C-alpha cells in the first residue's frame, strides 16, 4: 500500500525520496534513509526502520548497493515480506520485492533511480513513475520526485482487497550537501495527500530561501508576516 521513488540527481548529486501510502505518516519511515554523498534507501511492504541506517552505514563503508542488499537479506528473517530500494552516490541502484509482498507489486530500476510499490492497481504505476522521472529532466529534482508520485497516482495508484485505496500520507525528502535535509515536506493523514503536498510545495518553495537569508542577515530581514503578505500579493498579481 505504498509506492516510492528514490533517486540521485544526475546533475547535482542530490539524493531524494518521494513516497505515498495508505499507511499514516509514511514520512516518519524516511528517518535516516538519506545521507549526503553516500546514498538513499527505503524499506516498505512490512517496513523495517533499522534497515535505513544499516543500508546507509554499509554504503558509507564502501559496500556496493548489491552487497548492502545481501546484508539486509541475511540480517532479516522476514526478508520475504520486505520491499527495499537502494541507490548509491554513483547512481548504482538495486531493489528487492519479497515473495510475500502484497500484489500488485514490483520494482523498476533505472539509471540513478528505483521505483517500488505494493498493493498497486497494476504495475503500470511503476512504469509511469519511472517514465516520468526519466523524461522530466528540466525541472528541479524535488519537483521531479513529486511529479513521479503524481504519475503513479494517475496510472491507478493503490488498490486493496476491496478496491481502490486513497493515498493518506506522502513525503518528499531531498538532501544536498549539508548534514540536514534541503527539503522535507509531508502530509501525514489526509485523503488526496499527493494533491495536498503539491499545493503545499507551491506555497512553501518561495519561502525557503527567505528563511535561510533572514537567519544569515537578521539585521536587514523583513518580518516573516510582511514577507508572507508580499508573497500573497505577488502570487495574486501573477495569476
Amino acid at each position, binding site marked *: *500500500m505504498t509506492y516510492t521513488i528514490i533517486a540521485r540527481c544526475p546533475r547535482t548529486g542530490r539524493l531524494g525520496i518521494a513516497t505515498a501510502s*495508505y*499507511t*499514516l*505518516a509514511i*514520512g*516518519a519511515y524516511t*528517518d*535516516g534513509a538519506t545521507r549526503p554523498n553516500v546514498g538513499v534507501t527505503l524499506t516498505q*511492504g*512490512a*517496513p*523495517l*526502520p*533499522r534497515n*535505513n*541506517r544499516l543500508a546507509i552505514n554499509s554504503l558509507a563503508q564502501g559496500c556496493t548497493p548489491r552487497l548492502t542488499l545481501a546484508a539486509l537479506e541475511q540480517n532479516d528473517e*522476514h526478508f520475504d*515480506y*520486505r520491499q527495499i530500494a537502494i541507490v548509491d552516490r554513483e547512481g548504482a541502484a538495486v531493489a528487492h520485492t519479497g515473495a*510475500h509482498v*502484497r500484489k500488485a507489486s514490483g520494482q523498476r530500476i533505472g539509471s540513478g533511480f528505483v521505483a517500488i510499490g505494493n498493493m498497486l492497481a497494476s504495475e503500470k504505476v511503476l512504469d509511469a513513475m519511472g517514465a516520468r522521472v526519466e523524461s522530466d529532466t528540466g525541472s528541479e529534482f524535488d519537483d521531479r520526485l513529486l511529479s513521479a508520485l503524481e504519475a503513479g497516482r494517475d496510472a491507478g495508484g493503490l488498490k*486493496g*482487497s*476491496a478496491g481502490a*485505496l486513497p493515498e493518506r500520507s506522502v513525503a518528499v525528502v531531498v538532501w544536498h550537501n*549539508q*548534514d*540536514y*535535509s534541503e*527539503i*522535507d*515536506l*509531508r*502530509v*501525514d*493523514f489526509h485523503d488526496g495527500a499527493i494533491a*495536498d503536498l503539491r*499545493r*503545499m510545495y507551491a*506555497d*512553501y518553495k518561495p*519561502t525557503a530561501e527567505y*528563511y*535561510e537569508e*533572514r*537567519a*544569515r*542577515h*537578521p*539585521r536587514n*530581514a523583513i*518580518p*516573516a*508576516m510582511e514577507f*508572507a503578505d508580499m508573497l500573497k500579493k505577488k502570487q495574486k498579481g501573477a495569476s
Partner: protein
Amino acid sequence: MTYSIIARCPRTGRFGVGTTTFSLACGRRNESLRPNVGISKSQAFYLRRVDPFALNMLAQGHTPAHIAKLLEDDDPDYEYRQFGIIDRESNVFAHTGPKIGQWAGHQVGPYYAAYGNGLAGPETVEGIVAGFMSDPDAPLEERLMRGIEGGRDAGGQRFKGMHRPERSGWLRVVDRLDWPQIDLRVDMHDKTVAELRRIFEAFKRHDAYYQELSRNPQNAKPEEEVTCES
C-alpha cells in the same frame, strides 16, 4: 513566530519536542533530537547548523550552558536567536535574544523548556507550561501535545496587534533507538494544533498494528481491514 516545548521524560529518559508556527512545514527541520544525547531546538532567526552542532557538543560531553556560550561566542547575531537545549541528565538551558522583536520569551523547568517568539505575550508560554504540567503521569508525547494546546488556548501568536494562525506543527519523541518512536507533522493547515491532535489520536490507534507489521509480518492482517477509527 513560533512556540515550542522540549522535554526529557523524568521517568523514561525519552526526549521529545512539540512545536508550532506560522511558517510552513516547521517539522522539516527535524534534526533536533538524538537518543540518549539530548535535544537542541532553535528558532526565531534560526541557523540550520545550530542544532546539529549543539547535539554534537552534547555527545562530546559539554553541558547545555557551555554550549550556549560556544554559540554566543561564534555568532555576531546571537541576539536574534532563540533556542532550548536539554542533555541526558536533564540539564536545561534556554536563550531568547533581545532583538528578536515582538514578544519573545522562555520558561525553564527541571526537565523542560517552553519558549516562543511573536507571541500574544507571556501568557502563551505560561499556557504551554500549564498544559504540559496538567498531567505529569501522562506519556511524554501526550504532555507535549497538551503543552502546544495550552499555548494555543492562551493566545498563541500575535504580530502587530493581530492574532496569527499556527500553520504547521511537529511532534516527535525518541526513545533509545536511532529512529523516532513517534514523529507526526502538519505542514500546512489553518487549524494546525487541532489537526495535529487528530493525527496523533489516529496514530495511537494504529501504532501497535504498525509495530507488529514490521516485526511479525507473517501474522499481520491486511491494513485496509484494520479498523482503527475511534
